[in-house]
């Protein structure tokens, strides 16, 4: 830790559930506000309740009982077992693939966009505005419509049907770039950088030791978004991969879902529903783990060091 931080920033703030505000400022709880939010939460949960209830049903019950009513038997555990063992346990393989794509892809995306957003926010170099225009212009073009050009290009580079076809594109998160850009403008005071420079610290060292921890809540937000979008990445792997061994969960589940179509139809709705539930659970866990970073707030981002 450098000596340049103001005491306020260096000192871990006492953290508890309602955030960082001192007790004098903490307002009372509002029942009306809580009530309104509860209504919204109910709306949010209805489809998910359907998913959870459905995951406890056998395929026969799924196709014969009302959606929000329980089935004749409680089949959650047999569904989970069947999901994990169907077709020699390919679900676990898809799970591992997804994990790989997420760790490398989302991790890399967060790193690249944090560095780039910070660079754009804190340095006044030529071409800065152009970066904004180019990135904005490029992401305005619908990626689904660029699927064929991208596929052909990757194919020529020998990247299709490899993990790189999924990982390399997920390394870019234009949204993460913008978010970090805006965030870094606010969160990293210019004076702090100047002070660190006067101390003789190099630019990269300043980034790693000073700026990064100030950016922590933003980084966590970008990481979360990158995690979720890589986890839910569907279209690109659908186009790029034809080996089921490389599929992520989304493509695999859709393939199971499509099994219900046409001659040779073999629907496995119970596995699709249970598999979907199993796909969501890890993200919820990650969210739980990450949320303490917002909890501690901006200035406490530097707590443990």
């Amino acid at each position, binding site marked *: 830790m450098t000596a340049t931080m103001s005491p306020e920033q260096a000192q871990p703030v006492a953290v508890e559930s309602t955030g960082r505000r001192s007790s004098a400022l903490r307002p009372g709880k509002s029942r009306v506000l809580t009530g309104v939010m509860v209504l919204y939460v109910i709306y949010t949960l209805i489809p998910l309740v359907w998913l959870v209830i459905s995951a406890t049903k056998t395929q*026969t019950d799924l196709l*014969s009982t009302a959606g929000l009513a329980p089935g004749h038997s409680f089949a959650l555990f047999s569904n989970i077992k069947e999901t994990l063992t169907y077709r020699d346990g390919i679900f676990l393989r898809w799970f591992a693939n997804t994990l790989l794509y997420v760790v490398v892809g989302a991790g890399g995306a967060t790193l690249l966009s944090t560095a780039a957003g910070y660079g754009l926010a804190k340095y006044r170099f030529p071409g800065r505005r152009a970066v904004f225009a180019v990135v904005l212009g490029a992401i305005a073009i619908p990626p689904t419509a660029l699927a064929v050009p991208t596929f052909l290009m990757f*194919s020529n580079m020998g990247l299709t049907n490899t993990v790189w076809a999924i990982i390399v594109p997920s390394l870019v998160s234009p949204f993460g770039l913008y978010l970090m850009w805006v965030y870094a403008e606010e969160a990293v005071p210019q004076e702090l950088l100047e002070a660190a420079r006067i101390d003789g610290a190099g630019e990269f060292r300043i980034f790693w030791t000073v700026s990064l921890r100030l950016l922590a809540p933003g980084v966590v937000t970008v990481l979360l978004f990158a995690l979720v979008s890589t986890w839910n990445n569907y279209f690109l792997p659908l186009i790029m991969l*034809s080996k*089921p061994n490389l599929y992520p969960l989304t493509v695999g589940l859709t393939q199971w879902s499509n*099994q219900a*179509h046409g001659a040779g139809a073999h629907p496995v709705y119970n596995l699709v529903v249970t598999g979907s539930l199993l796909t969501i659970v890890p993200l919820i866990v990650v969210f739980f783990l990450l949320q303490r970073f917002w909890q501690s707030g901006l200035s406490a981002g530097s707590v443990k060091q």
Partner: protein
Amino acid sequence: MKIGHRRRFRRLGLILAALTASTLILAGCGGSGGSGSANDSGGTKASPQALDAALKKGGTITYWTWTPSAEAQVKAFMVEYPNVKVNLVNAGTGNDHYTKLQNAIKAGSGAPDVAQIEYQALPQYALPGYLVDLRQYGLDSLESDYTPSTWRAVHVGDGLYGLPQDSGPMAMFYDKTVFDKYHIDVPKTWDEYTAAAKKLHAADPKEYITNDSGDPGFTTSMIWQAGGKPFTTDGKKVTINLQDEGSKKWTAVWNPLVQQGLVSQIPGWSDEWFKGLANGTIATMIYGAWMPGVFESSAPGGSGNWRVAPMPTYDGQPATAENGGSTESVIKQSKNPALAAAFVRWLNNGNGIKPFLEKGGFPATVKDLKDPSFVNKPDPYFGGQQVNQVLTAAADSVVPGWSYLPFELYANTIYGDTAGKAYQAKSDLNGGLQAWQDALVKYGNQQGFEVNK
């Protein structure tokens, strides 16, 4: 120090520019890959013995399919021919499969050696020259092994682009409990069918004779059964007439059913549809002969309720059409086309048929369709009825002379934009078919065919 930094930036910029440029160049090369001409027969004529030699020599091939029996088939094949390794890949069902196949062919690499292709999609792959003409391996000598309708379905022009895997002569699957409950006789003609539809829906507004929310495969099969021949292709010349006699014959029956709300609008193959199969709200299904397998695997709740009867006809004389069905084809990208062709021969003309039938498939081979142990097998799902007696009889009464469009897959995609709209509005289906035709004529002419000229 300062200069060093600046240099580094220049270098980075250069690398960046080079990277962009090189990918652009690479990309530019991609477009021309994979195209070939339709008349390119690719290689010299070989004999069936060449296939035996290829099997003996061995090698590795890749096979893309979503057939449920594929795993068992490939396993059996590799036991029989230990020198050959078959990579079995399920690249998706239907459109997902075609998207990937199309991409791989266009990219010039990554396509399988052997791919499942539905009959309706075959011309779309055969015409641009993506498939190997199997006549060069003498497989045209197998003609007498197959039903005429499936043999015709694997031909595009004179070329033979696959061997039939299965067939789907249509029949009427009906829920006997519903018919018994409302004292309705099983209809033999479309007039009786319409009467049954009315009686059923009047007795209980939740009951429908069938569901049809507008499905191109069903529409074309129904026109086929009515004797229509809306699509003819001769080289580049294509004729589209969705207002021919057969088409109008079908719409005359189907218009009232749709317009009076006698058919359910539940889309086929949705979870609501499977519910309807199990709980008796959809009383009949007019589908191909592969349907019993679907029932057994997908609607266990309907077991014992369902029976099979011949498809209703216009005059009471047996007449039916094909609905669905696939072939296995050899992709021209294959580095070992002889071995691929030998595998196709084994799958659909050899020992591959047995595992296929065991998984509930419906064959295209005459020998198996006549086999008493197949024909007379009672089916417990259908209350012990010998369903194959009805279904194999249907295979004999397919109306001859049908062909699909060379761009049937595209036609299917835009069906909902045109003909499907008539279902939605409950308006005249003839208008919808006309709109479909107009869109297809326009597309065909843009793509270099001479449509209706």
